[in-house]
């Protein structure tokens, strides 16, 4: 099972250490973690994708709620949240394969971010599925480097940062 959590935290120094520390010391399986400012710059939203069995996932939510800096924890899993992910992928593109790689890039509608003689870097923005598709599509040409942000998610309609 997987859970997509949105954790709103006070933007205090060390808050990420508290969140990350909880994950490691309780042995939770985190697939991705993404943190960034919200519409209120004193509050950070941390999106966490965790996997595990039911009781463990329930514990994860409760333990996060206990952290002093945590303002609220929302489990977005069943809310059909709006999700998005960003990735930068550098793919090998030499000689004849360059045209083929470009073809795939165009086919997937990816944006070129950098062009080198023997490689291309593209920016993928979309859902996790879009990112996975780009990765799979470019894999045959040789992925030289990749950076993924991890999932960010909002419930719809967006919950206010400092709701009740």
């Amino acid at each position, binding site marked *: 099972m997987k859970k997509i959590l949105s954790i709103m935290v006070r933007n205090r120094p060390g808050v990420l250490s508290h969140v990350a520390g*909880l994950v490691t010391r309780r042995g939770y399986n985190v697939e991705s973690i993404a943190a960034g400012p919200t519409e209120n710059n*004193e509050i950070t939203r941390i999106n966490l994708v965790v996997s595990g069995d039911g*009781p463990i996932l329930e514990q994860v939510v*409760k333990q996060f709620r*206990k952290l*002093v800096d945590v303002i609220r924890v929302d489990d977005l899993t069943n809310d059909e949240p709006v999700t998005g992910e960003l990735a930068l992928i550098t793919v090998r593109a030499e000689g004849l394969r360059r045209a083929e790689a470009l073809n795939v890039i165009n086919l997937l509608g990816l944006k070129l971010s950098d062009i080198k003689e023997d490689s291309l870097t593209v920016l993928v923005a979309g859902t996790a599925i879009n990112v996975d598709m780009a990765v799979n599509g470019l894999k045959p040409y040789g992925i030289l480097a990749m950076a993924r942000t991890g999932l960010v998610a909002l419930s719809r309609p967006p919950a206010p940062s*400092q709701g009740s």
Partner: protein
Amino acid sequence: MKAKSKPSEKKSAAGAARGPERARQTRARAVPRNGAQTIIDFLESVGVEVIFGYPGGAVIPLYDALYDSKIKHVLARHEQGAIHAADGYARSTGKPGVVFATSGPGATNLVTGLATAHMDSVPVLAITGQVSTTSLGSDSFQEADIYGISIPITKYNYLVKDPRSLPGILAEAYRLTAYGRPGPVLIDVPKDIQTTLIDPGNLLPDSVPLRFEPTPTPDLRALEAMVEAISISQRPVLYLGGGATITNTGDDIVKLVEKADMAVVATLQAKGVFPDNHPLCLGLPGMHGSKYANLAISESDLILGLGVRFDDRVVGNVRRFAPLARVVHVDIDPAEIGKRLPVDVAVIGDLGEVLSLALKRLKDNRRPAWRERVADLRASFPMAIPVAGKEIRPQAAIKALSDRCGGKAILVTDVGQHQMWSAQYFEADKPRHFLSSGGLGTMGFGLPAAIGAQMANPGKLVCLVTGDGSFQMNVQELATVTQMGLPIKIMLINNGCLGMVRQWQQFFFNRRYSQTLFDYNPDFVELARVYGLKAERVESPGKVAGAVERLVGGKGAAFLEVRVPRDENVLPMIPAGMGQTDFFETEEGGN
């Protein structure tokens, strides 16, 4: 906001102050104070009476500010001693214990104490010095990242980087220690923050202040389900934990037990909340609980856990714990519900409130058959002390101490066999009168915790039962006992080995006593005398009562070494991870 409200708090605290005291406080309001003075002012304003600590380079300004204060300071001989003492102070009163330590090694020496307090939910405020903000992160002399180190073993922690945030942090941190489920909070204060003047008119407000919301009222449906579960139960067992001590709900628990004829088991943290000598009190459950306590659990059809963690030392095998019972769990911390054991009914809230609501709804429901069964179990499997031969039985020595104290003492224990024997044979009938490191099991906790308890309760009899292993882990604190003139009574159970581990090696490791036997021990009586205590040793069973009388009856600090055989075991015993009825039987038969 909170920071700005401080002067008014001060005003009310100073309401009755006269003469120089009032003048000093007026001055404090008028003149900007530096960070160190701000800390001391704050601690005075919230009524802190004692600080435990140890100075060092990075807290010289803090100690300088303390020099002018009316707050007493207990100079420990090791920072670990200081924090366990603050912990003992807090456990015996419910008020936050305050500890100071310097940066680097001073701060890291607090680690075990923080973890001890964290595990047993004890309110402790630790204030550590840190290298100046300008040197932070450059591996300066005596620099250690205590903020990072203490994250997993504190309820919350702070590194003060802006002097203008200090007043707000102090107020929030102090309140956090005892708010909801208590725990330790650490504030790391760089030296330059301590020396910088703080202008009360120019503070850094917290943009998203922490809301100290009142504990949510218990869900009525859950409460009704709990009452219903109690009403239909035939064989209810009340399982008390630290939450019962923290909320001081002993009176309501007695009412509940008498209304519903429940059998009672109590963890180390709850010992004394319900009187040990009550016929329905079955004492400690779990690994070293009595057979009757564990058999009652295994026969019961309702386990009502009040402020407990369903700790592995109590539950053993989760799947085999109380197989016939519905489980009702009351706790203030939602994360404790279902953490180890699935429960049938969960009530989240303040135990005091839950109990008073439940008592209103519960009808008298006597269960003579269950009372009789409990009495049967007690009679069939008594906690009998093995008959004394030529040597003293440690259980008998502890029982003698218990008899002499007659419920008047605060008993502090260390960790190991003597701790379990104390839980089994030392009678407590009041909460906060049995102090023991239960969750973390910290050897060396006892002596400093006894110091803290005695500081908090100057007129009270404070006894320590310790072992020859534990005692030497913080033996330096004997100097603190003597310096402060504390009349602590120390009973050292000396079996010349690390008894609990030796016992496991005997039972489960084929008697291979790897590194558990002390081939050398100091002469403890001489050691205690060197530190200024009256001390004696007792080696024969016939002389125990007299020696205990001299220990407890005399004036001032006293020390009694009780020589006991190496091979005495703590029984009964349920091996780790086993079911409630899997008592370990020795060839000696056990009890």
